[in-house]
């Protein structure tokens, strides 16, 4: 039985990774054409990529956007999760529903809304608007991760600190926050990963000055197709795998999707 399952999973894994393997493989072709199998090995398209400023600029932009929105979302997410867990406000369920709504509302809908709304308020193409959208998109991941993290440790330690005379903000800063560190780092990395690969909402709302890496790839590919995009994808795969390995070490994956 177990053997049958293993066989099934091997097939499934092959199915899941097939297109990615092909793209990475193809990135090493020396020709302009897409062929698998490739005829010989070459790093031509990687050299091409690094001499191509637009992709590099976009990579930096995505990096900056990802860091800022992950940082902001982790901070907001921690505060919100703390408020939900320790404060038991009226309508806590509805609030959690609101914070995690971007998971349920189709991204296209939000993208359209942001396109129209940023135009209405005169913030179309503004970087802060893009940051705000990304924070909204990744907030559910931060809130869920940190909720799990805060629930995992009772309020007793914090309570103890406060009964010994600490103010709440000191108790939170010096007791709770360090205990949640693992959760914070997981939340941060998860948010970064999601922001870094977000394409739909960004495509709709980002102005011309802010073409993130995924949007740059989308625009590039819809107009011309050469193995540069395979090379850039291969590099993104590398970075993402590294990040997820860190996430995995922190045991974050299980916490998020409960």
């Amino acid at each position, binding site marked *: 039985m*177990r053997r049958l*399952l293993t066989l099934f999973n091997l097939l499934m*894994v092959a*199915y899941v*990774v*097939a*297109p*990615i393997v092909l*793209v990475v493989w193809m990135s090493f072709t020396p020709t302009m054409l897409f062929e*698998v199998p490739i005829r010989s090995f070459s790093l031509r398209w990687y050299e091409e990529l690094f001499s191509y400023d637009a992709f590099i600029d976009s990579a930096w932009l995505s990096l900056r956007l990802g860091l800022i929105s992950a940082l902001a979302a982790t901070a907001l*997410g921690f505060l*919100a999760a703390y*408020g939900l867990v*320790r*404060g*038991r*406000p009226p309508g*806590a*369920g509805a609030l959690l529903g*609101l*914070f995690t*709504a971007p998971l*349920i*509302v*189709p*991204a*296209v*809908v*939000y993208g*359209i809304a942001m*396109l*129209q*709304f940023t135009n*209405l308020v005169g913030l179309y193409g503004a970087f802060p608007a893009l940051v*705000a*959208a990304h924070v*909204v998109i990744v*907030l559910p991941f931060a*809130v869920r991760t940190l909720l799990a993290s805060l*629930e995992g440790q*009772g*309020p007793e330690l914090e309570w103890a600190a406060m009964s010994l005379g600490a103010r709440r903000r000191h108790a939170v800063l010096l007791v709770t926050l360090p205990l949640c560190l693992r959760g914070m780092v997981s939340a941060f990395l998860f948010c970064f990963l999601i922001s870094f*690969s977000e*394409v*739909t909402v960004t495509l*709709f709302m980002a102005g011309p000055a802010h073409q993130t890496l995924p949007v740059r*790839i989308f625009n590039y*590919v819809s107009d011309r197709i050469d193995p540069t*995009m395979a090379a850039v*994808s291969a590099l*993104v*795969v590398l970075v*993402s*795998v590294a990040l*997820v390995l860190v996430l*995995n070490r922190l045991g974050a*994956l299980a916490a*998020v*999707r*409960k």
Partner: protein
Amino acid sequence: MISGAAGRSALGIRLGGSVWLFLGPALLLMLAAYLAPLFDTTIVSLHPNRPTGIDRDSWTIANYLRLLDTYYGEVLLRTLRVSLLITLFSVLLAYPVGVWLAGLGPRGQAWAILVYMSPWFVNAVVKSFGWTLILGNRGLVNRGLQSLGLIDSPLRLMLNETGIVIGLLPGHFLFVLLPLWAALKGLDGNLRWAAMTLGARPWQVFLRVTVPLTLPALLAGAIINFTMNMAAFAAPALLGGTRTRVLSFIAYQVNLEELNWPFGGALAVAMLVVTLGFVMVAQGLTRGGLGGGRR
């Protein structure tokens, strides 16, 4: 999730009114950068579109009436059909994968999850391109089958709904797998032992113990999976082709190519309503029909 935690927190020192200091920032962000835009789009969808732009002074439901056109009806039906199919396949495939995963050691689990996550590291467009190399008329599958002499003319594996389902499934599958995996790990091994010692066969244990206990997690994942299927547009555009458009792609065209925001807004609202409708039905199923839904 919340209720259990809040019960415990009652032991601690209550936050009182200052709870809003903690919730405030996130709440403000969601109001200004989430609810306000969605609200605005709803408003815009009720205005007529003129050659000079949106006419914010008059009101109309014409944009919604236009959705009743058979063309959009077909697109909506196709989108729902494809989305539900992907969710169905994801749910069916999730148990064999989840059970196998849960049986691995911690390291094995980490690596396997990494592999199942991998579709998320590649841009949807690039991934679709990879699929084209596999599914096209001269793709790997067709060339392979032809050289084996199994088929004469190439199978049509893309530029239709089949292509969309094949291409979207691996990435969106993850959202069913992760919660199911977590639930399977959390399953009390003693329960299965107990059932086994009482003479139940493994498949009986699976059907009578494992499935009912993990069904809520599965459904929670299925909901997110379904939403993502409804929203995807880059992969369906490339793998489905021009003849097999889905709702989100039409919304993209209307908003970014035709620049008809009122009608684009109506499409967005329609999509939101249909998606949330399905989600509510699914949640209703979890709570009501399946009894064991509460954890």
